[in-house]
């Protein structure tokens, strides 16, 4: 071997060695349980990794333990706890919703879940914020790619950050807090109305693709014998007024018509005592835990509540029903 070759190999090893060590470190910590043989405490991992990337955590988890019933949507759907649903319905559900989730992610997640197991019931939570052609957030594709390619997991920057935070938590004995506290409730409430709602509604676009993709989901559900349910979550009247402010009433109605043509719709987002009372909400978007239980009671327990139910797949529910006897 010539001196030139030896010199090259020496430098190449020097360059690559830290990356090999880093790869072994990721495999050892395995923050999202991709490989499944890491000795690191599961709770510490969940506390950090789960919050850093909901999609990654849940997709790997579901891949290991598929469930026949799934909940899809955003942070509001995350508030519907499977244990409470099990009490109401007697069935096991997997909460496959992501904080800040988009409909694009929900649809991709549905296809992922359907490719893993036979689904019996799919529940999608959404409203006009997410049924919006201008919301194209997608954290699912990158996770899907890792299923066939461990290299993508090892080099994922969220995996690297999670590994480091977990390592730091284990070394210091103090689990790092992910995310920021909301702070002043009134200020946050106002910010959600003035900024977040504007981001959603001022840029509202007709969701042509979502319409087609949801139709595809409904068709596949029909073929597979899967029940498809939509929940339009309650939001505070302050937020619903933003729909009027941005002249999106027609789009709001069109969304309901679109969804009703695809499955059963439980619509909580209309003017009623529940949506009028600020106590029922943490902020204009997010209802409290008590309301979450009420929603579960209505959807899975057959209880009465402030809901309108419609849909064309079950004949007796073709008419709009309003039950207000809370």
């Amino acid at each position, binding site marked *: 071997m010539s001196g030139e070759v030896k010199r090259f190999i020496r430098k190449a090893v020097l360059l690559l060695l830290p990356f090999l060590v880093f790869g072994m470190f990721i495999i050892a910590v395995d923050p999202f349980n991709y490989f499944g043989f890491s000795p690191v405490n599961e709770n510490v991992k969940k506390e950090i990794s789960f919050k850093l990337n909901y999609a990654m955590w849940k997709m790997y988890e579901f891949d290991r333990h598929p469930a026949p019933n799934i909940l899809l949507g955003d942070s509001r759907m995350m508030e519907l706890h499977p244990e409470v649903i099990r009490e109401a319905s007697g069935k096991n559900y997997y909460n496959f919703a992501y904080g800040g989730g988009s409909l694009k992610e929900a649809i991709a997640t549905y296809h992922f879940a359907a490719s893993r197991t036979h689904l019996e019931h799919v529940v999608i939570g959404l409203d006009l914020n997410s049924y919006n052609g201008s919301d194209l957030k997608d954290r699912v594709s990158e996770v899907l790619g890792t299923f066939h390619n461990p290299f993508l997991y090892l080099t994922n920057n969220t995996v690297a950050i999670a590994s480091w935070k977990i390592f730091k938590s284990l070394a210091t004995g103090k689990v790092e807090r992910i995310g920021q506290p909301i702070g002043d409730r009134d200020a946050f409430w106002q910010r959600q109305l003035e900024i977040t709602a504007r981001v959603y509604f*001022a840029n509202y676009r007709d969701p042509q693709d979502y319409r087609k993709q949801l139709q595809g989901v409904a068709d596949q559900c029909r073929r597979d014998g899967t029940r498809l349910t939509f929940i339009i979550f309650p939001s505070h009247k302050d937020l619903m007024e933003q729909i009027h402010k941005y002249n999106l009433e027609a789009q709001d109605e069109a969304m309901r018509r679109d969804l009703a043509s695809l499955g059963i719709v439980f619509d909580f987002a209309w003017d009623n005592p529940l949506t009028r009372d600020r106590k029922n909400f943490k902020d204009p978007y997010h209802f409290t835990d008590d309301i979450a239980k009420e929603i579960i009671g209505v959807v899975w327990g057959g209880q009465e509540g402030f809901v309108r139910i419609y849909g064309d797949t079950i004949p007796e529910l073709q008419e709009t029903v309003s039950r207000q006897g809370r």
Partner: protein
Amino acid sequence: MFFNSLHYAVFLPLVVLIYFLIPPKRRWAFLLAASYYFYMCWKLEYIFLIVISTLVDYFAGLHMSRTENKKKKRTYLIISLVSNLGILFAFKYFNFFNESARAAFAHFNVAYHIPYFNVLLPVGISFYTFQTLSYTIEVYRGKQEPETHLGIFALYVSFFPQLVAGPIERSTNLLPQFYKKQDFTYENATNGLKLVMWGLFKKVVIADRIGVLVATIFAQPHQFSGVEFILGATLFAYQVYCDFSGYSDIAIGTAQIFGIKLMTNFKRPFHAVSLTDLWQRWHISLSTWFRDYLYIPLGGNRKGKWRTHLNVFLVFFISGLWHGAAWTYVIWGSVHGVFMVLELLTSELRGKTARFLRISQDHILWRTLGLLYTMTIFNFALLIFRAQNVRDAFYMVGHLFDGVGAFLMKMAQGDLVALRGVMRSLGLSQKELTIAIVAIVVLEIAQLMQRRGSLRAQLNQAPVMIRWALYYGLVISILFFGAFNMSQQFIYFQF
């Protein structure tokens, strides 16, 4: 097999290792086999097209050299041109002209029966066709000795680093290098790898990352407005530059590991101060090909002012068609042709204006204006180039300024909600935006440094700590910020 794939990461070291282990006399055969394998990874049977081109041009070259009869020489040249361009036409342009004719006939309610030719475009066909044509033209002109070794000639046509997207090499540069005994050298290997890494950075960290946003905008332009179109065109300029120059860097770097020097294909095109300047910096191997084998044979600037202008326009018109068989490419080429002619027509006036203003044409203000003008025209033309069809292109051009004024007003008032709306509508997170911006800033800094000479030369003179910090930084960026997941093939493969 893409340069940005694991497949290539295994293929390249293996080929390098075996290449330097086998006796130098047999290396051409191994490199040829590796190149054919590289190409066959896309579509096995298309290797026959390369073999046909190789055989036709090999024998055309030999026969041309064996005769002094000009007519016979020309006949062999025509055989080469017709065969190569015939294959190119059949696989790349037939459907375009056929469908255009069908649409025209339908417009006049006339029946049209020539069927659609259901065939996949062979990867890199325009590149290797032009490369092999340059050989026969040079032999015809007597500037290149005919290659008698069929294997070496086949390697010239199919050398894998530059086979599918250039640089379009000249036989006078590449063929002699295959005869030289190349030893493995530390300098060649490390300098080559540095260029490969830099090319990968441009491809996976910048081009593929912003490519997702660009694809979103151009897939459904009717969903977007002027702000997104301007953003889309600007980002596409970076995407296509990083994608293509990234490919060229990887190709040149890979060849250098084998001790083979390929021509430079890009010289900081975004620092050009006119379109004329830009085309001397962008895809240089194609620009010079058109200059040598089309513009000059058409008469160049030797046949008067108006003929020169016509020749310039024709070169860009055909260059548009070279890029793709679609009207959007033809319009793109024509837009460049028109502005190139306008530059020629106004060159005297611009000189007078500069003299009147008493500033040199190298003055920073003059250069800045030139740069703004160049990038505006270049990006505008790219909007048409990237559009899915002519209808989309016209829609985007027609709505280019929709909502831009209001958006700028809001931004000027410090209202960032409008920007958040745009980001959300493109599915862009803050993290992705930050990565893309930082990567583009790194690219621009590197390009500014290139004004002082080769980056690698500057790097080699830097203190060891800085050098290694940069190497690690580059590898970390590629591994952790590269959009491998959204991995797309190189844009120029389709040409």
